C-alpha cells in the first residue's frame, strides 16, 4: 500500500506497477486521455493526460508530466487541477480539434464519443481556428467497418490494437506530419477477424460499425440488455442494442475473465440473423400439436444453440428417456469425451484471462481463429507477454510502457508450439508450427506426455503451461492426447466447443439424435436442423408422422416440418448458457418477441399445459445434480434496487430524442417483464446494478463505452459486484481414462483423408445468415497439397465421402500432409475426418 497526494488529498493506493493515469481513474477522478487504453497500455502519444508532479512537499512549482507514462510510487504528490495542467490539457484538445471536422450531427460516434466527452471535460468550448482543415479520402474497408479519416486525432490506438495486439498486417499509419493517415495501402476488406474492435478502440468516429450505420440509432435511443454471444463456445459477454423491433448492433460487454475488452467479428457482426426476413414467424396451432402428443411415442431433440431452460422444458415435455441431443453423432461423442476429460483433469479449464497469462502453449489439431476466435486473440497475448515481462524485468521498463517493451522484444515469443494439418493464423507467433495429420498430432501429444523431445522440455520449464485442443480437428485421439499431455506437464487443459451451449447440452447426458428410435410418432425438434446432422435425415423425417420444429432459423428441417413454432432468438429470450469452461451465464431479453414468436421454453411449457416463470424453469433445472447452483448465474426476477427494476433504456434526459418522449412520442406502453429484474423502460434504478444485470456502460460525462472505467473495481479490473457466472463442471474427479497413441498416419493410394475446415465466417449457422458475415464467407473449395494440386489443377473435382458427392473447385495448401485434403464443414452431414475419394470432376458436362 502506498499514499499518494493528489491536489493535497492523501489517497491510499496499490501501485502494483500501475501508472498515475490508471491510479487517478481507479480512484474515480476524471483525467482526460486518448492514447492510453487499459488493454493496450501507454505510449504517451497524445499528451492529453498531463498533470503537475511535485518533487516533495516543499516543491511549489512542480513540472508538467504525462500521467500515463509515470509509474505510481509511495509519497508522490501531483495536481490535476493546477491551472497550468488545466490550460495545457485544454490546449491539447484545441490542437487536436484544429483538423477535426466537428461533424457530430452526422457522425455515428456522436453521443457516445470519447472525443466529445474529453472536449467537454477539458472545457474547450470555443472554436477559434479560422483556416482550412486538412481532408482525407476515405477507404472502403469491407462490409463491417466504416472509415471516415477526417475525424482522426492521431492517437495511434487503432494501429496499436490492430497490429500490435491483434496481429493484423494490413492497417498502418501512413504518411507523416499533420496528414498521418490510418488505413490500408489501398481499399479493401480489413483482413483481421478482430477488426470490429476498432469501432470501440478508436476514440473518435473514424472507425464505426458499418452494419449499425445501415439502421442507425443513437446510443441514447437504443434499448440494451446484458447478453451473451451465441456464435461459439467461448461465451463472450455482449450488449446488443435494439430499437423498433430491429436489432441494431452488438457491443462488447466487459467480462474480466472472458472477453475483456474485445470480441471477434463473428460475435460482433453475426447479430443480423435476428433481423432476417426469412425467419419463421407464423405458428402452427398448438392445440393440434397437443393432440399429436397425446397419440404417444414422442421423442424430442434438444439443441446446443438453445438455452438450458429451453432444453430442460423440452426434456420435461417429452420425458427424460425420450430426450436426445440434437448433435451430429461424431460431435456428440467428441463433446462427451472432452467433458469427461475435463472433469478428471486436476485443474479447471482456464478462463481466457488465464489463457493470456500462460507462459507456454501447446496447440494440438485446432485452429481457434476459425472455431473459437476470441480464444485465438487470447493465445496471441500468451505468446507475446512472457518476453515482454522478461524484457521489462531486465531493462527496468514499467509494465505499462507498451512501445518500449515491444521495441525491446521485437519478434521474440514465448514457448508456443502448434501441430495442425493446416496453417493457422497463430503460426506467426509460434516457435514451431508443425503440419501433421490428426493421428500424428495425437502421437506428438502422447510423445510430449512421455517427456520426449524438445517441445516437452520447453513446456516442462514453464510456470503456467497450457494445452489447447478441441472440436475443430474432429479427432477424439487428439483430444485424448491433449489431456494426457496436459496431465503429464501439470498444464491447464482447454477444449474448444462449437456452440454457445454445447457443454450445457452435454450436461443433460442425453444420447445423440442418431440413436433416436426411427418409429416415433411425433418428433419435436428444438432448434435442430436434422439435415446438418444426419446424412439420412430425409429418410428419418419421412418415417415420422408428426414433425414439430421449434426454431428461429429458416432451415431445411423447418421446411420439412408438419408444424412450426417460431422461437425467439437470444435477443428476444432469457436463458442460461454454459461455455467451454463450464461457466453458466445468463442472457436477458433485449426486446420482447412480437407476433407468433415466443421463447422456446414458453412454447414447450404451453404444449405441456403448464405456466411457469423463467425462474421456476431454472429452479427445476437446478434440481438435476449436473445443474446444481445454476440459478446463481443472475439475480432472480424479483430482485430490486431501491424497490426499482433495472431499466433497459437510457434515462429520459440522456439525449435529445428521449427528453420529452413521455409527452410527444406515441409509443405502445412498455410490456411487463415477469422473468427478470430488468424493465423495458426508461424508468427504474439509475445507479450501477450488479454486474450480470448491467445493460450499458454510461456515467455522467462519460457517454462512450469508456464509461466502463466507472463500473470496474479498478480500471482494467473486474466489474464491481458479484462475479458473473457459476461453474458447473466438477474437476479432478478421478483417474484419466487411459488413451493409447494411434498408429502413424499412412496415406492411402486409393483414398484421401478428408479433414474438416472451419471458418470464422460461414461455419456457424446463426451468424452465417447475417449479411456482413455472408459477404465474407469464402466460396467453398477443397484444399489439397502440392502434388494433388499439380495433378488436378484448379478443379473442379468430385469428392465422395460417405454417401455424399460434392463437386468443388480446388485450392492449394502446399503444407498439407500428404494423403489429406481439407473440406469446409457444413457442405454435407458426413462426419470428418473421413476417408473418401477424389476424382477430376466433370470438366465440361
Amino acid at each position, binding site marked *: 500500500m502506498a499514499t499518494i497526494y493528489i491536489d493535497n488529498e492523501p489517497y491510499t493506493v496499490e501501485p502494483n506497477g500501475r501508472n498515475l493515469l490508471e491510479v487517478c481513474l481507479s480512484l474515480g477522478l476524471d483525467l482526460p486521455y486518448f492514447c492510453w487504453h487499459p488493454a493496450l497500455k501507454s505510449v504517451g502519444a497524445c499528451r492529453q493526460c498531463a498533470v503537475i508532479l511535485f518533487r516533495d512537499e516543499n516543491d511549489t512549482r512542480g513540472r508538467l508530466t504525462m500521467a500515463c507514462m509515470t509509474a505510481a510510487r509511495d509519497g508522490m504528490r501531483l495536481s490535476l487541477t493546477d491551472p497550468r495542467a488545466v490550460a495545457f490539457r485544454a490546449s491539447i484538445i484545441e490542437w487536436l480539434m484544429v483538423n477535426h471536422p466537428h461533424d457530430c450531427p452526422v457522425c455515428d460516434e456522436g453521443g457516445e464519443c470519447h472525443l466529445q466527452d474529453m472536449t467537454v471535460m477539458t472545457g474547450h468550448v470555443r472554436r477559434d481556428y479560422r483556416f482550412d482543415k486538412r481532408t482525407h479520402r476515405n477507404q472502403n474497408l469491407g462490409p463491417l467497418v466504416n472509415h471516415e479519416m477526417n475525424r482522426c486525432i492521431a492517437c495511434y490506438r487503432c494501429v496499436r490494437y490492430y497490429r500490435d495486439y491483434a496481429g493484423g498486417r494490413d*492497417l498502418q*499509419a501512413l504518411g507523416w506530419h499533420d496528414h498521418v493517415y490510418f488505413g490500408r495501402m489501398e481499399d479493401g476488406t480489413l483482413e483481421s477477424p478482430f477488426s470490429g474492435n476498432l469501432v470501440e478502440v478508436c476514440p473518435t468516429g473514424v472507425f464505426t460499425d458499418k452494419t449499425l450505420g445501415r439502421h442507425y440509432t443513437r446510443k441514447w435511443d437504443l434499448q440494451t440488455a446484458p447478453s451473451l454471444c451465441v456464435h461459439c463456445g467461448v461465451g463472450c459477454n455482449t450488449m446488443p442494442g435494439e430499437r423498433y423491433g430491429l436489432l441494431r448492433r452488438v457491443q462488447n460487454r466487459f467480462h474480466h475473465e472472458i472477453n475483456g475488452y474485445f470480441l471477434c467479428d463473428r460475435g460482433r457482426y453475426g447479430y443480423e440473423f435476428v433481423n432476417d426476413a426469412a425467419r419463421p414467424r407464423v405458428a402452427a396451432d398448438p392445440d393440434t400439436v397437443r393432440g399429436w402428443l397425446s397419440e404417444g411415442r414422442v421423442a424430442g431433440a434438444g439443441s446446443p444453440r438453445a438455452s438450458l431452460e429451453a432444453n430442460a422444458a423440452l426434456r420435461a415435455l417429452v420425458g427424460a428417456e425420450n430426450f436426445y441431443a440434437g448433435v451430429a453423432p461424431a460431435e456428440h461423442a467428441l463433446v462427451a469425451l472432452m467433458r469427461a476429460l475435463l472433469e478428471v483433469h486436476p485443474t479447471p479449464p482456464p478462463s481466457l484471462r488465464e489463457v493470456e497469462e500462460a507462459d507456454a502453449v501447446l496447440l494440438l489439431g485446432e485452429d481457434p481463429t476459425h472455431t473459437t476466435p476470441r480464444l485465438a486473440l487470447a493465445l496471441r497475448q500468451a505468446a507475446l507477454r512472457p518476453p515482454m515481462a522478461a524484457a521489462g524485468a531486465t531493462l527496468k521498463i514499467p509494465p505499462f510502457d507498451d512501445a518500449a517493451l515491444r521495441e525491446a522484444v521485437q519478434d521474440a515469443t514465448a514457448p508456443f508450439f502448434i501441430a495442425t494439418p493446416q496453417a493457422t493464423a497463430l503460426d506467426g507467433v509460434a516457435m514451431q508450427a508443425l503440419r501433421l495429420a490428426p493421428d500424428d498430432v495425437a502421437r506428438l501429444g502422447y510423445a510430449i506426455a512421455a517427456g520426449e523431445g524438445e517441445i516437452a522440455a520447453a513446456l516442462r520449464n514453464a510456470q503456467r503451461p497450457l494445452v489447447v485442443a478441441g472440436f475443430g480437428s474432429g479427432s477424439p485421439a487428439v483430444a485424448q492426447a491433449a489431456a494426457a499431455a496436459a496431465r503429464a506437464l501439470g498444464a491447464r487443459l482447454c477444449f474448444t466447443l462449437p456452440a454457445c451451449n454445447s457443454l450445457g447440452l452435454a450436461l443433460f447426458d442425453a444420447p445423440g439424435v442418431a440413436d433416436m428410435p426411427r418409429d416415433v410418432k411425433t418428433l419435436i425438434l428444438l432448434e435442430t436442423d436434422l439435415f446438418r446432422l444426419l446424412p439420412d435425415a430425409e429418410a428419418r423425417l419421412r418415417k415420422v408422422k408428426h414433425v414439430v420444429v421449434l426454431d428461429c432459423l429458416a432451415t431445411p428441417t423447418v421446411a420439412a416440418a408438419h408444424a412450426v413454432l417460431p422461437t425467439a432468438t437470444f435477443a428476444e429470450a432469457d436463458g442460461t448458457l454454459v461455455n467451454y469452461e463450464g461457466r453458466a451465464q445468463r442472457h436477458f431479453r433485449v426486446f420482447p418477441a412480437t407476433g407468433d414468436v415466443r421463447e422456446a421454453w414458453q412454447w414447450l411449457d404451453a404444449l405441456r399445459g403448464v405456466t411457469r416463470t423463467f425462474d421456476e424453469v431454472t429452479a427445476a433445472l437446478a434440481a438435476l445434480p449436473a445443474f446444481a447452483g445454476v440459478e446463481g448465474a443472475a439475480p432472480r426476477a424479483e430482485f430490486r434496487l431501491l424497490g426499482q427494476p433495472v431499466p433497459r433504456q437510457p434515462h429520459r434526459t440522456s439525449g435529445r430524442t428521449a427528453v420529452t418522449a413521455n409527452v410527444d412520442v406515441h409509443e405502445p406502453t412498455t410490456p411487463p417483464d415477469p422473468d427478470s429484474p430488468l424493465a423495458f423502460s426508461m424508468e427504474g434504478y439509475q445507479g450501477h446494478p450488479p454486474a450480470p444485470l448491467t445493460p450499458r456502460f454510461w456515467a455522467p460525462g462519460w457517454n462512450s463505452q469508456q464509461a466502463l472505467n466507472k463500473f470496474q473495481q479498478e480500471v482494467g479490473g473486474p466489474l464491481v459486484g458479484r462475479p458473473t457466472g457459476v461453474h458447473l463442471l466438477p474437476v479432478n474427479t478421478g483417474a484419466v481414462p487411459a488413451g493409447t497413441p494411434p498408429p502413424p498416419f499412412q496415406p492411402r493410394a486409393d483414398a484421401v483423408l478428408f479433414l474438416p475446415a472451419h471458418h470464422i465466417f460461414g461455419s456457424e449457422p446463426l451468424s452465417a445468415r447475417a449479411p456482413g458475415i455472408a459477404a465474407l464467407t469464402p466460396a467453398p473449395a477443397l484444399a489439397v497439397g502440392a502434388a494433388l494440386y499439380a495433378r488436378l489443377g484448379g478443379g473442379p473435382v468430385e469428392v465422395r465421402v460417405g454417401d455424399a458427392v460434392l463437386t468443388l473447385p480446388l485450392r492449394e495448401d502446399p503444407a498439407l500432409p500428404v494423403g489429406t485434403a481439407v473440406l469446409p464443414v457444413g457442405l454435407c452431414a458426413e462426419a470428418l475426418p473421413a476417408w473418401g475419394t477424389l476424382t477430376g470432376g466433370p470438366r465440361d458436362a
Partner: protein
Amino acid sequence: MLTEHEQHEIRAQMALYEQPAAVVPEALKLVQARRGWVADEDVRDVAAFLGVSTAEVESIATFYSLIYRRPVGRHVILLCDSVSCWIMGFRDLRAHLTARLGIGMGETTPDGRYTLFPAVCLGACELAPAMLVDGILHGNLTPERIDEILAGYE
C-alpha cells in the same frame, strides 16, 4: 519485378540488420534509383522480397518525403524553405521558380522535365538561400543564378 541487381543489393543490406523491416528504406531507395519513383508494384515486390506486409512497406514509403510514391520529372529540384533560406530570400526564389516553370510546389512540368519540392534545411545555411537539383547543391541563389543553373538542364 525486382531486377537481379536490386535483389542482390537488397540482400547485401539484409545482412546488416536484425529485422527485415529495417531494410525497407534502403530497398525503396534502390528501387527509386532505377525508375525515379516507387510504384505500387514496387511496394508489393519489396514487401514480398523482405517478407513484411505491403502496409508496413507503404507506411515507410509514405513517411519519408524523399521516397516518391508518384512519378516525378527527370530533374527534381528541392528548394530549401527553412529558416536561414527563408530570411535570405526563399520567397522571391519560389516566386521566380514557380513562374518560370509554370508549376506550383509539388508539381511536375507538363514536359516531364522538372518536379519542384520544398525541402527542410539542406545543411548549407552558410550558402543560403540554397537548393538541390538532382542532388547537386547550389547556394547563394538569386533569380538570375537559378536561370543559369536551369539552362544547364535544358
